């Protein structure tokens, strides 16, 4: 693909669904549902992650996310945030499938509250079960190329390694392993978690990732809607830079103006 084609027709496909935006945004931590909706709009995201939680039966008339972000226009990707065992995650996604009617889901099984680091043994076990039940899980995982391979073999439709711990905003800690995962994967790879600012998102895309998933970097920015715009631009810039192919690094200077004709 040339860079010119890249601008107009650069799409990516996960489990048979094709998307133009490579930015997936979360819908947690916003000050209001209005701000949340405005940020989703500004981000250009076509997929948002959502959590599955009990309805408030004491006050059923509380404002709902679905009134602000239309699930007919934006793909809802239900997650398993807060699940620490395969069983909890599977139960949550069965409910999500019933609530939404779709099989494309985000699986995350966490190992501990302090780091929210994925528990890969439980994650793999849940992936196996979910795939057998007809789910199409996009799977949050450690930045480990072997674990990524195992998930893909188990039927994960996308591999989503963390750049850094959830909500930390530390940026991509291990570019080498993210790149190895990209090179080895036959399914889309998205950096999920750890992005803090626009350059982190660009870096993920420059490494060849198919997309980036983020929540806190936008929701906790002083101006969330403006940061959503920044992230949209950053993901596009990083993608274009990846397609363009960056120059080789040199250890010393190389003048940009011709030496010939120097007075």
């Amino acid at each position: 693909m040339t860079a010119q084609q890249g601008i107009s027709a650069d799409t990516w496909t996960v489990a048979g669904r094709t998307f133009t935006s490579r930015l997936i945004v979360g819908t947690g931590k916003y000050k209001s549902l209005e701000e949340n909706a405005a940020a989703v709009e500004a981000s250009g995201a076509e997929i948002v992650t959502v959590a599955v939680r009990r309805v408030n039966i004491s006050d059923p008339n509380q404002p709902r996310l679905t009134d602000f972000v239309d699930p007919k226009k934006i793909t809802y990707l239900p997650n398993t945030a807060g699940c620490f065992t395969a069983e909890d995650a599977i139960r949550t996604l069965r409910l999500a499938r019933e609530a939404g009617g779709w099989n494309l889901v985000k699986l995350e099984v966490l190992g501990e509250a302090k780091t929210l680091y994925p528990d890969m043994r439980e994650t793999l076990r849940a992936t196996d079960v979910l795939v057998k039940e007809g789910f199409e899980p996009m799977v949050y995982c450690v930045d480990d190329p072997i674990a990524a391979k195992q998930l893909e073999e188990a039927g994960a439709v996308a591999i989503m390694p963390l750049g850094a711990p959830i909500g930390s905003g530390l940026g991509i800690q291990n570019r080498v392993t993210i790149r190895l995962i990209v090179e080895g994967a036959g399914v889309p790879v998205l950096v999920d978690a750890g992005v803090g600012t626009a350059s982190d998102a660009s870096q993920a895309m420059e490494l060849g990732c198919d997309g980036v998933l983020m929540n806190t970097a936008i929701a906790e920015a002083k101006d969330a809607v403006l940061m959503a715009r920044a992230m949209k631009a950053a993901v596009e810039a990083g993608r274009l830079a990846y397609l363009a192919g960056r120059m080789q690094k040199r250890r010393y200077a190389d003048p940009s103006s011709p030496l010939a004709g120097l007075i």
Partner: protein
Amino acid sequence: MTVDDTLSVRINGEHRRVPGGTTIAEMVNQLGLDPLRVAVERNLEIVPRGSLGQACVEDGDDYEIVHFVGGG
């Protein structure tokens, strides 16, 4: 079942009473919820949306009623 013909159930961890013969869809409606926008689990088993209108609430049922909320 009690003498006043109501059923004792738990919904999202809260104790509730509903009239005998109520379907799950009716119970969800009575809570002020749209059955098309939630998922219902009864005693750890999903109740498919298509059968909410037929399945009757039983005394002692434990329900989880969930929906989508903001999350990362």
